[in-house]
């Protein structure tokens, strides 16, 4: 049985302003592996939340549920809209999911095409698509890269463009998987600044505890498919027993 820490659980109760609500989410993979065992989580508008936990804790699985790529048992609500098969397209435009490896996220030959992919598939007219591409690239400070070829970008640049590809859909919540992995210190620093500036609700899965400490007021700890702690980052980072039990380290 996983160790749970009831003291930390559900410090943040549901409220009217919640952007994202997850209630009692369960999921098993077809091969029988149980990945999520009853996840409940709320994100308030403007929240910047870190999601930490060892490899295999279910962080990525949870993220893939938030926009319906995986379908588990339980409820997911975005701005009061309950996720179901019928409203998948709407939900997907509300959840900006950025994958860990930018080479998977940037699948088009050019930066423009990639950033335009989301808005185009939302059915927006061409002028709107172009406007959104421009503003998304501005938001990540990459306006000059519009006509670049994706494979010519550095890892740091790719990460920024990857974020732009979902910002262009004007999502309600940004969900990032390991944004700082594989970045050199300078690119990491500039990414941290970018995340701090972006005025958007975000849930960020990471192993980078210094990033957590610096950027996120609130931290959710997952292990073995469960949320074992959810609270203020400074409280959680002080709880050495909790951190050690779940393979985490104090920064």
């Amino acid at each position, binding site marked *: 049985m996983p160790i749970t820490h009831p003291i930390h659980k559900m410090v943040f109760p549901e409220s009217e302003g919640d952007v994202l609500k997850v209630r009692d989410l369960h999921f098993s*993979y*077809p091969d029988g592996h149980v*990945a999520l065992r009853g996840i409940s989580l709320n994100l308030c508008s403007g929240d910047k939340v870190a999601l930490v936990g060892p*490899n*295999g804790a279910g962080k*990525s*699985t949870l993220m*893939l549920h938030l926009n319906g790529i*995986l379908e588990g048992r339980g409820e997911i609500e975005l701005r009061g809209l309950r996720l179901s098969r019928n409203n998948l397209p709407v939900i997907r435009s509300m959840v900006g999911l950025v994958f860990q490896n930018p080479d998977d996220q940037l*699948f088009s030959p050019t930066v423009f095409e990639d950033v335009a992919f989301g808005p185009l598939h939302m059915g927006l007219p061409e002028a709107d698509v172009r406007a959104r591409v421009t503003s998304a690239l501005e938001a990540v400070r990459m306006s000059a890269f519009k006509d670049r070829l994706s494979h010519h970008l550095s890892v740091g640049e790719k990460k920024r463009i990857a974020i732009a590809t979902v910002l262009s859909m004007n999502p309600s919540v940004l969900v990032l998987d390991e944004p700082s992995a594989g970045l050199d210190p300078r690119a990491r620093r500039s990414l941290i600044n970018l995340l701090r500036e972006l005025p958007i609700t975000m849930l960020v899965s990471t192993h980078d505890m210094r990033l957590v400490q610096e950027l996120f007021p609130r931290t959710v700890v997952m292990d073995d498919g469960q949320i074992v702690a959810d609270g203020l980052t400074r409280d959680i980072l002080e709880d050495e027993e909790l951190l050690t039990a779940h393979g985490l380290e104090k920064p």
Partner: protein
Amino acid sequence: MLYSPIQPMHIPDNFLSITVSLICWAITIITLGVAISRTNKSLGERQVPLMGVMAAFIFAAQMINFPVLGGTSGHLLGGVLAAIALGPWAGMLVMTAVIAVQGLLFQDGGLIVMGANILNMGLLTCAVGYGLYRSVIGSNRTVKLAVIGVAAWLSVMAGALSTALQIWLSGNAQLQVIVPAMLFFHAFIGFGEALITVAAVLFIIRTRPDLLGEGTESAQGGRGWILTGVLLTLIVVLLSPFASTNPDGLNRVATDLGFIQSAQTASGPLAGYTVPFLESVSASKIVAGVIGIIVVLAIVFITGRSMQNKRGLNTQSNNIQATRPPIENRKP
């Protein structure tokens, strides 16, 4: 440089006559048309990125070479592997993309003759390879791997024969020279292809058996493929020695169809032209003999298998999405 290995089968522009180029384009376009409508019908939407990345895979895998003999090296061409992994139609589309990029971006193969290049290296290799593979799909691993090896070798020979015939039909080489020359040369290339394909498939079967198992796209091919594979194999086997040793018949046909000028009427100037090694050493006969033996064995075997297989036919499931678990669960 390591990019796009130079392959003798990539015909450059102007090596085939316009007529032959256009006929090849026509065959290619018709086949691709069928392939596109089949893949649209049978493949899920996730097949689009899969085919795209697999095309990049084939391209990149062609760079993995291994030393064979004195400076020559073997590497993957990939038609059979693509067809086995993705199913024949998707495999053809993937190979088409690879050949198109090689021709367009790297000038490895011409544009007007691209139809012929796609036909030789993409469509034929997939058809031969998949046809033979499909016939033993229910067999045990050893049998499967053996047939895949033979299929890989034959796919290269089929492509080489077809290339040789196109060059001959264009009036740019003599049948009794080009056919044995191409086949002899490609017998070695095919050997490399066979070894590497078998090793790659074995690796995949060991690590992700679900990718090649029942319920995958590649298990769905109709039984018509077996017939196609066996027929193409027979053509390669029967036509190669015939074309090499007894070219008059084919020459007459080609002359009658207006492809080439009759070599016979110009008997004077050509009288001095002989290729004695065909009569004496006869590499072509050796090649033909080897093909013959392998193919006879294969056919006997295939017939036996397909009779045995008839019972298990309706057990195939038809939803790939449901049977193939997503990748995320591979994480520890």
